[in-house]
């Protein structure tokens, strides 16, 4: 009888480590990027820079929470950018008319409505989430244009609390963390320690089996996409406070990066695998990467090439390391 050699190759062992604790390699990638930055420009690593990076990463990480949760079920939510933009735009333009609290209330109701419509289409009409959320995104943009025509002359006000959250600092760190840390803890708890979180994994992993175990899949979808709408609305408010601009395309450029953050963070687009911890690191990695490309003084063409190439490389590396079972 031959003895099986137990000295497995290093790559495979590393792979196993990553499957068990996927946050480690992501942290390593993040640190490596920061190291590259520090070499490029040693002066950069200040408290100010850290605070600034966190500030920019927060809205992205929040929108990426929507992607993480929906991707766990095998879905995706490409309407988050629109929902965030609408929440921001409505808040800024309605505040002069009806005051900040009501304006924020209405804005969040709009974001929730988008989520509910997504949920209904996905849960009952069984439209694929990609199509459904693109469709509602289109419809919602249309509504925003109609709305914009009707409020064109009232001017904009940015509620102070949002400005404080978006631009203020406390001990050098952005106030946005006062919103984000409880938010992240909540999402991690929901995902790991609640029945709802478990159902997300269950549906993404085997919807038929979940159904046979008595799960009412439509309830989960409805709740999930509504939650996603609310999170998107919240991110929009924070972003408004940060940018202090009510534009019709405010958060739209964050749609694809939010998907990228979740994917880099190790959430599978096929459903059933991943988690929000990795996503947060993914958002930080993307933000640091963007800073790096700016510092490199790359022309736009080069920036895009590098950005795309690095995202693909990180994704491929991660797959290579974790998927060789």
């Amino acid at each position, binding site marked *: 009888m031959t003895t099986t050699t137990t000295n497995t190759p290093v790559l495979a062992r590393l792979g196993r480590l990553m499957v068990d604790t996927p946050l480690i390699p992501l942290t390593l990638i993040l640190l490596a990027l920061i190291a590259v930055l520090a070499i490029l420009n040693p002066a950069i690593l200040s408290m100010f820079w850290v605070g600034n990076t966190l500030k920019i990463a927060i809205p992205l990480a929040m929108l990426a929470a929507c992607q993480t949760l929906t991707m766990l079920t095998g879905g995706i939510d490409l309407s988050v950018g629109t929902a965030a933009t609408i929440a921001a735009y409505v808040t800024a333009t309605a505040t002069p008319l009806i005051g900040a609290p009501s304006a924020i209330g209405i804005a969040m109701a709009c974001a929730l409505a988008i989520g509910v419509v997504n949920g209904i289409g996905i849960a009952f009409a069984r439209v694929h989430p990609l199509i459904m959320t693109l469709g509602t995104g289109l419809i919602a943009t249309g509504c925003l244009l109609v709305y914009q025509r009707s409020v064109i002359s009232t001017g904009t006000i940015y509620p102070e609390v949002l400005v404080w959250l978006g631009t203020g600092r406390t001990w050098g760190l952005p106030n946005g963390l006062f919103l984000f840390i409880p938010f992240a803890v909540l999402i991690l708890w929901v995902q790991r320690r609640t029945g709802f979180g478990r159902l997300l994994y269950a549906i993404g992993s085997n919807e038929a089996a979940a159904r046979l175990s008595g799960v009412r899949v439509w309830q989960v979808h409805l709740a999930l996409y509504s939650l996603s709408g609310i999170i998107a609305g919240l991110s929009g408010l924070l972003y408004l406070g940060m*940018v202090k*601009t009510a*534009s019709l395309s405010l958060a739209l450029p964050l749609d694809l990066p939010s998907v990228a953050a979740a994917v880099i963070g190790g959430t599978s687009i096929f459903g059933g695998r991943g988690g929000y911890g990795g996503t947060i690191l993914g958002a930080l990695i993307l933000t640091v990467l963007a800073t790096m490309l*700016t510092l490199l003084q790359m022309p736009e063409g080069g920036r895009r090439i590098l950005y795309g190439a690095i995202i693909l490389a990180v994704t491929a590396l991660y797959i290579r390391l974790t998927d060789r079972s």
Partner: protein
Amino acid sequence: EGYKIGISNTVQGNGWREQMVCAMKAEALASGKVESLNIAHRNTDAAGQLEDIRNLIQAGVQAIVVNPSNSEGINSAIKEATDAGIVVVAVDQAVTEPSAYILSNNQEQYAYLGAKWLFETMGGEGAVVYMRGAAGAGADNDRDVGFKRAMAEFPNITIAQEVFTGWQQDQGKQQINDIIAAGVPFQGVWTSGIDNVIVDAFVESGAPLVPIVGADNAGFVGQLSSVEGLQGAAVTNPGSVGGAGVALAIQILDGQMPAEKTVLVDPALWENVTEEGKANLAAAANPNLSPEWPVSVSIDGWTTYTMDQIIACKGPGE
């Protein structure tokens, strides 16, 4: 030892904006007073432009010429810059921050001038196809005001169809094709700068030509003198305001303050009906330019570079 000037632009890959950036480079080079240009030229939004402007401040520039993505969104960064003693000139579109200088094309006048010519050419009555730009964009709103002002002066003119081209050539072409195919009666077309494809659509479909007003893009200007039976007018909307912005910034750095904080460049109209108009068109036509570039590559009294310099698109030190 020249000046160090920063540039911030948020739309890329559009002929008009390319010309603007090339004009900035050419003017900086031609002035001989600029040591280096620091250019942030990418597709982004207000948030990204805020970041770009802060990076320019950190890089230690003495002036920033910016095409603002939005009239309010970048005010905080502009304030930071002017507080730090940096001269800020906004070109093409206005900003509401009072410490910035503004040098822009007069968009309201742009629309008014073209519409008025069109309505007069139509004999003061008939229906017009109104092809706007991107819904919600600042320049589009300003142009709408001008267009409506002209409409008010011609009570017998009606709008046959109002569409947004999104400033996309293909979309505009599909829309005009639909309108022609649908048999909607109209006697004129006003477009917000998507022009040569409109003429193409008429020619390709064999539909009878009507008067068309567009911008001074090279392709359209060429068509105005070459397409048989086409009556039309090009309204100038020079991308070279960028060069003018740089010139203004240099003047200010040299210590010559302008009288007003806001300078509007008024458009001119070149039609192909009168001899004078034809001469203007012939003078402006330039087969070397990409059809998407405006032919008005310079602005009298502001820019100092030559045609070759702007086409070469090289800044100081390149």
